[in-house]
């Protein structure tokens, strides 16, 4: 359970969620995004290709992150949600709040 942070060749900050995104580690993700914003990053991608499951705290953290990025004048994309993970966003209607791409490559191309 952790996060892997990289920067794409086009300058997008990419955060990969490895394992779960739940109450025990959601703050770490929020802190990473906050630090990225403070460093001047304005294009962020959170990728879930290597994620097992997300709980409501994790979804809530993503909502907070989305607000923070918006307030900073930035753009946030999500990618790599498998069918199960995507169903959580659909059930909670959060698929209407986020820009979700199938793959990280598609998300990066959409900035």
């Amino acid at each position, binding site marked *: 359970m952790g996060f892997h942070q990289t920067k794409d060749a086009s300058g997008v900050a990419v955060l990969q969620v490895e394992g779960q995104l739940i*109450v025990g580690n959601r703050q770490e993700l929020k802190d990473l995004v906050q630090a990225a914003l403070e460093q001047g990053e304005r294009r962020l991608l959170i990728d879930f290709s290597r994620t097992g499951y997300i709980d409501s705290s994790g979804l809530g953290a993503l909502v907070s992150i989305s607000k923070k990025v918006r307030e900073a004048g930035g753009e946030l994309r999500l990618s790599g949600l498998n069918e199960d993970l995507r169903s959580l966003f659909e059930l909670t209607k959060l698929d209407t709040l986020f820009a979700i791409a199938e793959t990280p490559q598609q998300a990066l191309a959409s900035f």
Partner: protein
Amino acid sequence: MPSSLRLCVRRSSAPDGGEAGTLVTLRLPSEVECIEEAVELVTRHCLAGHAAPRKTRFRLQVVLSEAISNAIVRGNREDRDKWVHVRAELDRDTIRLHVTDEGAGFDPAAVPEPIRPEQLDEANGRGLYLIRKLVDAVEFNERGNSICMILRRP
């Protein structure tokens, strides 16, 4: 490191002709660091000996994580002197999961629906809604400190 979890598994062979079943109990401390391990342990026992589709495993993981997290954070308020008790009653057709905390309880009927447009920007309030959507039935005890989630095996 999280404190150790206490797991107990009992299998009934039903000598009286009744249906055989398994009872799994797990006691865990009120530490969010324990949630992932507790979820994996209980999920593994719930699915042992059954050919479960990926979707069933995922639903179990999410609702267990959700209910245990609620019990630790909202029920026990992360009080290290309080425990969370998980009890899984398993048989051929059904998985019945009880998660109980040692807090004062809450009124599940008072929890608002989180999917109204004006609620979408809220960071909290989706847990119980998600549980209700992912299992076949949900029950609470009268005090509101114990949830029972029922999943029928596919």
